[in-house]
Each structure stands twice: as C-alpha cells, then as structure tokens.
C-alpha cells in the first residue's frame, strides 16, 4: 500500500468534508471547525495510517461523527417542512430580473428542503447528487450497505418529488 501524505492525500479532501459537514450542521462556521477538528484528529492518528484501508472513508466517518456531535450540542431546532413550503408566487409578469430572483428563491427553497431531510438521507443525497459518488463508494464512506444507500437515496428523492407535486397542485 502506498504511503499516505497528509498534504497530498488528506488535505485535498477538505472541500468534500466541508460540504458534508455543512450539510449536517447547516452552519458554515461550525462546518469549518468540524473540518479543522477532523484534520487534526486524522493527523494525530498518523502512526496508524498504514492500518487504515481507506483514508477517505476514515476522514468522512470522522467528519460525520464530529458534525453530528456538534449538531447535538447545538440542539438544532427542527423546523417543520410546512414553514418553508410554497409561498405564493406571482407569475403575472415574467420580466427578467424578477424571473431570476424567483429562480433564486426556488433554489433556496430546494436547499432548505434537502437540509430538512433526515440526516442519513441528507448525507447520502449530498454524496450522490453533489459529489457524484457511486453507490458503492457511498456505502464505503458511510459504512452502510449498498442497499441502504439506495433506499436512502430513493426516499430522499421521493421526498423532494412529493414537494414538487405539492407545489404543482397548489397551482404555482
């Protein structure tokens, strides 16, 4: 097995870890702290790097656990889905800046929607739809079965789809 270099193998994972931590903590400052703690934790285990078969999975697991700890400590208040759903939108005039602003609102709405999914679904969706990882890789990274990954992705996407349906029925 090749020698692991902190600078070349672990540090470049920072953005992936940051995005994952951000998806769990939903707070940029906390997420950055989590990544820093993850890096230091992994660094302190440098003597046993050779015994770890997948350093990326190890980092991801550490990062996820730290993020979950942080979230628990922050006592994140779960806002209900209804509070973000479907604010009335006016389609009477589709002038360009207005259309763009509306588009931005919709993107923000989707982001909130993803952020309110159960934590496992959120992580799986993050790794699949944003990081573009295969089911197999996600299974390794999160230490769950591929079947579990698939089920979680399916549920997450169904939840989003339901929201689209709901919006559609309200007659946008």
């Amino acid at each position: 097995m090749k020698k692991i270099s902190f600078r070349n193998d672990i540090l470049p994972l920072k953005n992936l870890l940051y995005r994952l931590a951000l998806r769990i903590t939903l707070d940029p400052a906390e997420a950055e702290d989590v990544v820093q703690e993850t890096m230091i934790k992994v660094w302190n285990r440098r003597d046993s790097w050779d015994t770890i078969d997948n350093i990326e999975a190890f980092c991801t697991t550490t990062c996820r656990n730290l993020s979950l700890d942080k979230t628990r400590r922050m006592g994140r208040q779960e806002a209900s889905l209804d509070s973000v759903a479907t604010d009335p939108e006016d389609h009477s005039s589709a002038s360009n800046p207005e259309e763009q602003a509306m588009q931005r609102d919709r993107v923000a709405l989707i982001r909130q929607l993803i952020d309110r999914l159960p934590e496992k679904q959120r992580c799986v969706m993050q790794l699949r739809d944003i990081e573009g990882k295969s089911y197999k890789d996600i299974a390794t990274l999160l230490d769950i079965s591929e079947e579990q990954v698939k089920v979680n992705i399916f549920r997450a996407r169904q939840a989003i789809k339901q929201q689209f349906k709901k919006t559609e029925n309200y007659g946008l």
Partner: protein
Amino acid sequence: MDYKYIEQLLVRYWKAETSIEEEDILRAFFSQQDIPAALKQYQPLFTCQQEDADIKLGDDFDERILALTEDTEVKPVKARTISLQQQLRPLFKAAAVIAIIFSVGGALQHPWDASWNDPRIDYANSYIQQIDTADTIVPMQAENITDAPADSSKAVNETLHKE
C-alpha cells in the same frame, strides 16, 4: 429537441435508478437557459446541486491546518552550499550604502552658492550704489526746487493782501 429522453431520465431519477452519467446529463440539461415549461419546475433542484458542489473552503484554511499539523513536526535541516560571492553580498551592500551616504553628505558640505550669485542680491547691491550717488545730488536739487515755490507763494499772498 426531444424531451422524451429527459422525461424518462427524470422518472428514473426519482426512482433512484439513474447512473452517475445519466444524472450528469440531467444536470447539464437543466443548466441551459431555455427549458420547456413542463420541465422548468425541476430546474431549481439541479441548479442547487451544481451550486452546492462549488462550495469551497478558503485558501487560508490549508495554511492554518498545516501550521497545526505537518509544520509542527521537526524537519531535518538541509545543508546549503553558499558561494563566496553570496556570502559577501551583504557586505557589498553595506559598503555601497555607506559610499552613497558619504558622497551625498560630502556634496552637501559645499553648497553651490560659492560660484553662483543670487540675482536679487546683485540687483539690491546695484540699487544701494545708485542711492549713494543720488544722496549727493538730491539735496542740491531739493534746495532749488523748494526755493522757487516758496517765493512764488509768498508773492501770491502779498498780492492777495494788497487787494
């Protein structure tokens, strides 16, 4: 354009049956400007995925982490060979600076007015000379000038009194 394919992909996307490549196709499709109205509502989801993939940590993060990790390790000191010229370079620099200070200082000791006269002073001097010569002439003239009007005024007064 045929949107059947995209619609099919979407159906499979919701069922979590699409491959990574197919999901890339969906993202590429929804990043276009002109999306048919029927599909437009799904655009924010894929835009959101693309935007969130661009979230990054700042460059200072690397330095901070390296300072806390790798840089804390004592690195073996590497010997460097330095040529004689490199070794003496600071000395040359110091010598050059001192030379500049001395030459500028020396120049300032001898200001340039030794060979250069201020034209205003020249002019003032010549004026003083003019006044000196004028002093000898002016009283004589003054006497002449003051006598005549005094006399004439007297004469005028006398004629007035007579009347």
